């Protein structure tokens, strides 16, 4: 239940509001999650006037304003193709016009394709109070994170190979299992699994892709719930991990062409 609405025009003013202990005050991005019915009274600080919606490629990084919408990110030419696939899978067009990049990550559960790929990319969150945190560190802390830590920017690497694979009941349904793999030119490979639990899961962060399928199988060996058994998720995670790594080769061929 939203009991106060604020739309500050400076980050400083926003931080003052967010620092209040009473009432509980949260940053409001697009609102597609926060505006859903709730019994918990909260005040919201709308970030739309803070200039946080810019998206810019700087060197080998794409810097995504926290308030940039998923659709804006989808429309950005520099956005990696596999991330675009995940954005399309994350939400339909209307919600993509509302949902912000940071808000989606803050609200994401394990079934979020966007969070899965962003975690594989090793996305870094930049906070207003001079702090940078890797998404992998942020996700487990979300429930206890201080509301005053306003995310201003998300940074992802551009000089990487990236692949996103998933299994779902239908093409647009939430994933039962999804896998995102990112590989740097050094060979460093990150494999992240989604489709289960409260958060995507980092299955591998290694110097190369060796062992990624086995790592995937192990990572989801107990990932059973009402939607799928652990045996199924574990087996499919291995298959999707293989395909994600193989897709790097395909992307190499595309680049050569």
């Amino acid at each position, binding site marked *: 239940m*939203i009991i106060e609405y604020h*739309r500050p025009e400076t980050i400083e003013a926003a931080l003052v509001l967010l620092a209040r202990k009473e009432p509980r005050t949260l940053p*409001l991005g697009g609102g597609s999650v926060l505006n859903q*019915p709730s019994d918990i009274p909260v005040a919201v600080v709308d970030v739309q006037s803070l200039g946080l919606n810019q998206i810019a490629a700087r060197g080998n990084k794409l810097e995504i304003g926290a308030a940039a919408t998923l659709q804006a990110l989808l429309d950005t030419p520099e956005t990696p193709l596999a991330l675009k696939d995940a954005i399309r899978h994350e939400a339909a067009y*209307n919600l993509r016009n509302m949902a912000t990049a940071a808000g989606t990550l803050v609200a994401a559960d394990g079934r979020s394709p966007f969070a899965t790929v962003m975690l594989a990319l090793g996305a870094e969150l930049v906070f207003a109070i001079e702090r940078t945190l890797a998404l992998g560190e942020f996700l487990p802390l979300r429930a206890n994170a201080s509301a005053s830590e306003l995310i201003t920017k998300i940074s992802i690497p551009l000089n990487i190979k990236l692949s996103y694979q998933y299994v779902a*009941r*239908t093409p647009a*349904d*939430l994933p039962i299992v999804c896998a995102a793999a990112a590989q740097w030119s050094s060979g460093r490979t990150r494999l992240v699994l989604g489709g289960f639990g409260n958060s995507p899961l980092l299955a591998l962060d290694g110097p190369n892709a060796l062992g990624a399928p086995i790592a995937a199988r192990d990572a989801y060996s107990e990932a059973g719930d009402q939607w799928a058994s652990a045996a199924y998720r574990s087996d*499919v995670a291995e298959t999707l991990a293989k395909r994600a790594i193989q897709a790097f080769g395909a992307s190499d061929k595309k680049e050569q062409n």
Partner: protein
Amino acid sequence: MKINLHINGIDHPLEILPGDSLLKALRGLGLHSVKFGDEQGLTGSDTVLLDGRPINAGVYLAAQAEGHKIATLEALGEHPDQGWKKTDGLHPLQHSFIETGAIQCGYCTPAQILAAKDLVERKPNPTEAEVREALSGVLCRCTGYKKPVQAVMRAAAILRGEDVEPIDTPAPIPAPQEWLPAHEDGAAPAPFGGDPGIPQVDTRTRVMPQITIAPQEAELRIVGKPEPKVDAVKLAQGKPAFAADVEMRGMLYARVLTSPHAHARIKAIDASAARQLPGVAAVLTHTDIPRVVYSTAGQSHPIPGPLDCFSLDTKVRFVGDRVAFVAAETPEIADHALSLIQVDYEVLEPLLDTRQSMQPGAPILHDEPDYVNFADSDPSKNLAAEIRIDIGDLEKGFAEADRIFEAEYEVSKVQQAHIEPHVVVTYWDEDDRLVVRTSTQVPFHVRRMLAPVLGLPIKRIRVIKPRVGGGFGGKQEMLGEDIAGHLTIATGRPVLYEYTREEEFIASRSRHPMRITMKTGVKNDGTITANAMYALSDTGANGAHALTVTGNTGHKAMALYVGDGEYRKTPNIQFNADIVYTNHPPSGAYRGYGVPQGFWAVERHMDKIIDAMGFDPIEFRLKNALRAGELHPFSTAWSEGREPRPETIETNGLEECVRQGKAAVGWDQKYGNPEWQAIPGKPHLRRGIGVAMMMQGTAIPYLDMGGASIKMNDDGSFNLLIGATDLGTGSDTVLGQMAAEVLGCSLDDMIVYSSDTDFTPFDVGAYASSTTYISGAAVVNAAKKVAERIRIRAAGMFSQRQDVSSSGRQEALTFNAGDIQLSNRQAIAPDGRTLTLSEIALHTLHAEDQEQIMAVGSYYSPVAPPPFAAQFAEVTVDMETGQIVVDKLVMAVDSGVIVNPITASGQIEGGMVQALGYAVCEEMVYDASGQPRERDFRDYHIFMAHEMPELETIFVETYEPSHPFGIKAVAEIPLDGVAPAVGNAVFNAAAVHIDANPITPEKIWRGLKEK
């Protein structure tokens, strides 16, 4: 807080609460095109344009929207005829949505048009994929998205200044593959489908192909034509046509406290704190209202099922069951009040497995003394209904078989998922009669059923059915009307009760889940000698529709395959069923009404037999299928709890459906062709193709009745008043077409109104595929009476004119009424002279022997002629993960004469897509304590515009002699065959039999692992 919203070019200063949604603010301003669909923004029926881009107003704060340009559909287009005021008319998008039949219930239409407007302004020449992506944020449960996509493509072309094909140009009938030269000379068949990654959906705007295999009685002018829907113009503008689109002074908002337990007794309720909350007008618990036992099933009197419901009871029987009602000044206050009600529950052991329901020691759900039995119901055994049907000699049939096949199947609990939730407004009128404005399929049943529950005589209740935003059976039920009615009685004030989306999932109705056992005897020549089905059906906490839904499971699905040769005369069929209570939410009516469950089992079972005995899937089915001239095998055995009477099948286009469907899908080139099944470069993928055959019914014989009245106006137009309820199906339109056909006028001249229990004749309502057939015949009866009066008056007027102009020759020029033809808005004499209908009306109403030309017609049928159909499905299966993608659905259907090919094909397309959900993704799952997994559209996935398979519909027209225009039903049969056809296609691709729907990736994966 005060804000200023810039809406449709006008600034609106508003006083709002910080948490008010933009949806609430817009509807408060009377902008009713923006509609509630859910609380998560997943339906998209709350779409508005914010700075030109579609967003969901229900999850966007009004305060967030300040400083932005907001556009709603109200700003787009105007009715072209506004008297002396010239208008620019409708926008091309609105025109195209109307012309192409993209509007069914119309609830999501404003959202689709706005999303399309954004697209065509950004991309004047969009691809089909871009159109689908643009519409992806708007769920539509009626259309299957094909026609909305066509509408956007057509409008874009018009906006680019291009010529478009006229809408009523029939497409050529595709020639069957075997007629093509490539086949004759033995050359390789044409490539199939192309790149599997590219959508193959046909977006050309055209009338679906129709193949007539029986002559009609006469050439028809309006019946059979793709007339635009009579309600389409208002729906394309987002006019306030739906139940919630009213504002009444002093209106209260109702909320319901629901049970958190699957099974519990209410020991005590303390509502004092809720009652003291400022803004609360009433809190009702079971101690505050009379205890009246009833059934929620919207069926004819007497309801063929037990009476086992109470508006509020001392016991709760599922998570989501009613505990208390609140009415308050705002929905937020009502929600707050719910949280203040203290309930002391004695939690009881839940009963969640149908196999335990009748076991000794099982928890008893209905131990109340005022339970009223129907037929064989027995609450002491948790038995809501029992069916035992034996046709022929089953054991003799099995003894004559060479092989006997037994298997078990399972079907899931699924939701109607209409985008407009259940919604009702009640108020006292100036005569202290209770007016119930409700989104219902059964207004007359609601009036009759509601009266005793509220303690009012029927005559003091008026039920108004406005436009309905989809029903699919979910609104063949009295669900919210008693809640709002009780609260209006308690407060004296108007009350709006609208289900939340969560309530739709946890507290409304669903398709009955069943466990089905099949046993079939087959001779080596492919003759079925005996066929038996046992269904254990889960009616949930209440027995509404328990008997009749499950009865139809056997009555339709087990009637199709009678056997061949002598078995055709005396088939051996058994259908037994137990319909039992559990602590799941009640099941009920859902489009198809038990038949999809039956055909899942029958058609999956047929494929197993075919596989085991090496038969051809099509030849085996047709060899054993019911044929024209044969007795419907169940017609002498069962009729929805009433006396059965024998019925002969007059028309059956099944073989032609198969022939056309095979040609359209390329069956002969694909089935059994390993080259087609393989996908080059993707060895883990395999294609498969499957078929299912189906029959349904058309209305309930000797029971369903419809009425219609027609009144002639001064200008030669007519008011057509019908009790039938258009849920978006187009029934207002096709009934108007039939009347216009008889009266010789255009559909424009028919002012169609449905339904209002004070003004329109009785009709049982929209269910059992009855409206076009039953209500249509009633309309024809009324129209014939009106036409006869018009002819009589015209004959007199022609004679009088002869008197004046040719005195002395009167006798020779006097015409009989029967000699007068009505056509082109005229009465035409045998000598070619004409009178316009307007001239006749003015003469009749104002000049001489004045009378109101008006008539009432009604109809019930002694027969229920079945439509028949062949359903084909193509799938791709991932052999490593079990992922399934349905690539194509083709349905060829014999629904008799098609009154309107646009609305009818829309029914087929939308029905196939609902059935596709039943095939692959829709189910409602409960944990061990009865807590539901599905509470919103995030978890309950229904198909979206950008993930659709190719859809194709073919009508094979027979002429059903029992109807004045030769029609049979079209509405429900598309629900029957998709799931088994997809299941059979999966078997064709992966050699894995999936016996429980939906066919999920894990089920296929398990099957592959077990091979």
